[in-house]
Structures are given as C-alpha cells and as structure tokens.
C-alpha cells in the first residue's frame, strides 16, 4: 500500500519535472484519438454505404412465356444450387407489371394500361449474389458457352438475362476498390497512431535513460523502476483519452447531430454502423493501453544495466 503511494508520488514527480515531454505525449494522444474518432466513423459509413449499394446489385433471368410450372420449379432448384447465389426470387408476369406501375407512378401507369391490352412483361427469376463481385460468375454458370461456341442456357425455358450490366459491374468494381482503400487507410492510420504515441513516450523516457541507469546502480529492481513509468503511461493515456473524448463528444452534439437531421448520410452513421459509446470506450482503452505498454517496452532497453 505504501509502495503504491510511493510509486504514484514518483510518477507525479516525474510528470511535473518533465512537464514538456509529458505534455507532448498527452497532446499526441489527444490528436491521435480525435483523428481516429472522426475518421473511423466516416470510413465505417462509407463502407456501409458501399456495402448497401453492392447488396442491391442483381440480375434477372427472363423466361419464355410457355414455361410450365414444373419446369419453373426445377429451374429454381438449379439456380439455387449455383455457387455464390444468395437468393432466387420468382417474379411472375403480373408482379412484374405491378412493379413497373409502381415505378412509373399513378398517372403514367394509367396511360400505360390504356395502351396495352395484354401484359408484355415476361416472368423472371431475380438472382441476388452473395457478393457483387460474383455477378459475372453466376451469369456464366446460367448461360455457359456450348460446344459449338454459342451460349447455351442451362434450361430451355431461359430466354435471356437482362440487367444494367455495364452499370452494375462498374459499381461492383468501384465499391470493391473503395473497400480496399478504406481498409488500408484505416490500418495505416491505426499503425501511425500507435507509432506516434509510442515514439513520443520513447522520447520522453530516452531523456531519462541516465536516471534509469543510476537507479539500477544503486540497487533498484526492474519493477521498482518500471512501476512509476507505467503509472505515468496510464496518467498520460488517461488524460489524453479523456480530453479527446470530450472534444469528440462536443463535436458530435454541436456539429454532427444537428446536421444529421438534414443529411441522411450522417444519420446513417448514428443509427446503423456506429455505436458512439462503444467506439469511445475502445479508443479510450486503447489510449491507456498503448501509452502504458509503450512505457514498459521502451524502458526494457534501459533496464539492461
């Protein structure tokens, strides 16, 4: 107990006597945590948006009008068996017309009905892949190239595949590139933060390496020297983390929350992907851990005497 008080006093003394490096370490922690706290939600939102877009990508397999019920049921089974197919949905002629009318709106659909005496739309299967990247593969599995070099659908009731092919493949490409870029940036950002914080700590300990050597030479054990440094690390991480969270929280209630009423982009981040308290907790714990472990690890080198 008196040991703990001694170590606390030592840590506080060191922080006071090394005010400049201590402050530098705290500010570094604040800046890093704030940066992560702003960028991570933005990246998460972007990821979620692109996932959402990709999730909506699909294509339809149009069927000949003379397909029998048995043929349709057996094709559905075959389609579902194709790898990477997430779901297969039958859209009947009437459903297709209904959807079309919904998209056109009341006025135009009235006009349409008056012009048509018969439903011209085919029945179709809507194929949703597990990932947008597999669209092309599934397409090839449904209409493979036959022995004569011509496309040969897996079933005789398949008329053709229709979708906005160019567009969907472009979206698939862009979003997967975006996904990779965002992941890489996030990882780099986290690595850079770790290095920044641990480097600042290393610097502040480095200026005191002689002190550590002296402590060793007058008979201090490693842990006797290490504890105050670790406590210092906790104090730095705790203070830095706390200030950063205060800034993030203020930013959230003064900037993000009012704006999210206007911009759905921001709203998405509040309700779906981002759990603000959870992120805060993780960042805070990380700040304390990194600065504490950073102190301990850096010290190892100087404890060799």
């Amino acid at each position, binding site marked *: 107990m008196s040991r703990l008080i001694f170590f606390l006093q030592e840590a506080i003394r060191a922080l006071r006597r090394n005010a400049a490096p201590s402050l530098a370490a705290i500010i570094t922690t604040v800046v890093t945590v704030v940066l992560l706290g702003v960028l991570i939600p933005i990246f998460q939102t972007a990821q979620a948006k692109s996932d959402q877009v990709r999730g909506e990508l699909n294509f339809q397999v149009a069927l000949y009008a003379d397909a029998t019920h048995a043929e349709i049921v057996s094709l559905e089974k075959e389609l579902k068996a194709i790898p990477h197919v997430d779901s297969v949905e039958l859209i009947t002629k009437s459903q297709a017309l209904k959807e079309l009318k919904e998209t056109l709106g009341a006025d135009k659909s009235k006009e349409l009905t008056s012009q048509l005496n018969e439903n011209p739309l085919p029945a179709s299967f809507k194929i949703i892949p597990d990932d947008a990247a597999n669209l092309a593969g599934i397409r090839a599995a449904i209409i493979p190239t036959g022995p004569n070099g011509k496309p040969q659908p897996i079933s005789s009731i398949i008329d053709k595949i229709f979708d906005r092919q160019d567009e969907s493949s472009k979206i698939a490409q862009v979003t997967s590139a975006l996904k990779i870029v965002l992941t890489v940036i996030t990882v780099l950002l986290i690595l850079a933060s770790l290095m920044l914080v641990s480097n600042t700590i290393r610097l502040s300990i480095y200026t005191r390496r002689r002190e550590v050597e*002296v*402590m*060793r*030479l*007058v*008979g*201090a054990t490693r842990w006797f020297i290490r504890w105050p440094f670790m406590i210092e690390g906790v104090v730095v991480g705790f203070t830095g983390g706390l200030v950063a969270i205060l800034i993030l929280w203020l930013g959230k209630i003064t900037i993000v929350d009012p704006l999210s009423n206007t911009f759905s982009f921001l709203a998405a981040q509040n309700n779906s992907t981002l759990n603000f308290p959870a992120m805060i907790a993780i960042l805070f714990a990380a700040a304390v851990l990194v600065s504490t472990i950073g102190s301990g690890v850096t010290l190892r080198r100087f404890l060799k005497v």
Partner: protein
Amino acid sequence: MSAEPNPPMARSKKRQPRDDEPRRPRGRRAPIVELNDVTKVYAGGHMALDRVSLAIGRGEFVFLVGPTGCGKSTLIKMLIRELATTEGTVKIAGRDIGALPEKKIPQLRRNIGTVFQDFKLLPDRTVYDNVAYALQVIGASRAEIREQVPQTLRLVGLSTKLHSYPDQLSGGEQQRVSIARAFVNHPPLLLADEPSGNLDPVTSIGVMQLLYRINKTGTTVLVVTHDREMVDNMQRRVVELYEGRVVRDEVSGGYTEESTTEFGLRMRAEMGVGHQGEGQSNGHGQDALI
C-alpha cells in the same frame, strides 16, 4: 533500517565451519572482496585489467591508486557488476557475483555503497530525495527514511542543502551527496571512486576523514584516489595498478590501532572537529557513526 547486512553477505555469515576445516578466529571469514585473475577486455579490444588478483578482508581500509586509465574505475565497476569480467572471478563475501542471476543483482548493489566518479545523482531529485532513494529501493519505512536521511546528511555536512537540486550544488557538495547516498543504508562495503577527485585540499581532507569514520564503524572501504600525499599520510594498505596490472600491494604501511588513532587525531585537528565517535569504533558498532 537495520544495520545488519542483507544477503548475499548474510549467507556467508551463517555458514558453519565443518569439523575438518581449520577453525578460523572470529571475524576472519571469507574476504569481503576477492578477485581471481580478473581480466577485462573492452569491446574495442582494449585490455583494461590484466589478470588482477586481490583480496580485501572485512573492516579493511584500502587505497587503490594508479595513473589515469590504468583500470581503477573498471575494477570498481566489476565489483557491483556494472561490468562483467572477460575472464576470472569476482567474489563478494565469498560468492561469485559473475554467477549471480540477474534477479539478485539489485540485492548485491544494496549491500555495496558506491561513490561514483561522476557522482551519478538523480537530477530530478533534491539532495534529500537522492539520499532517500537508496533507502526507498530497499523498502525502508517512511519513519526510517525521515530519521536516517537527515542524520547522514548532517554527517557529510549538507544539512543546509536538503532541498537543493544537484545542479545547484558545487562539485564537492555533489560528491558528498553521493557519499551520503552510498552510506545511508550502512552497507558492509563502501567503494569510492576518486571521492576527492575534484575537491580542494581542505574539502578533500574532509571527505577522507568521513570515509575514515565510516571505516571505523566496521564498514570495509575501498578508495580510489590520486592524492599521493593523502595515501602516504594515512598509512593504509595501498594497491597500485599500472596498465591494468597490480604492481604494488602493500598490505600495511604500519597498519596498527595506534596509527589509526593517531591518524584520526591528526584528521580531527586538521578539520577542527571534536572527539565525537571515538571509542565506539569496535568494528561492529554500525550505530556509532550516527
């Protein structure tokens, strides 16, 4: 803070002589310092010590002399295992410290007070806290620290500088803080590397007198010095190094109780100090000093 030596010293103290062993008279246990053919070659290939053998008995006062660069500091550093030997063994109180596990090294250093040539004070601490640190590392209580630290600082004449920081002190004052820190826990062995190295003659006599008084309490003292006059006057054992070798080891220049007393009187006369401490110097009176 008990004046009793901690392990590894304690271990050799408890050791019982076997029946077939010749019984030694009391107090003549294993030498407190024993070097056997110690060689030290630095990383650059420079041989700083060349097969040095040396034994120092408990309670002795030994001067280590020799020109700059002859290996005196190197030898001191080996005794606290700041440096490892290249060859040979260093024994402290009969234990080979080269074989000491990493974990036991702090324990060894707590039993050896060291006055470093460059003082090695902690810059962020006051005089008081620097001396207190040596007690804090051994887990002394606050009460013990409050008692011992001012007493020891009074002994070295720094009572008025308790709250100064090292950079506010003169070289001589820093040296005396270093001595106080080395001695505050009453170690059985005190090493002093040129403790009067950058002191004026008067202060230097003061430091030697201090070491002398410390020796009178039973502490073994090994002093590195350049001060030829001091060495000649004190009539103590002198070990001289030259280019890493022992070239002279005069076990005693008339080392008797009488000369000790004479020396003490002369020292006091020179410093104008009274007769305190005299008569309690029985080799075990670790409390006599304070």
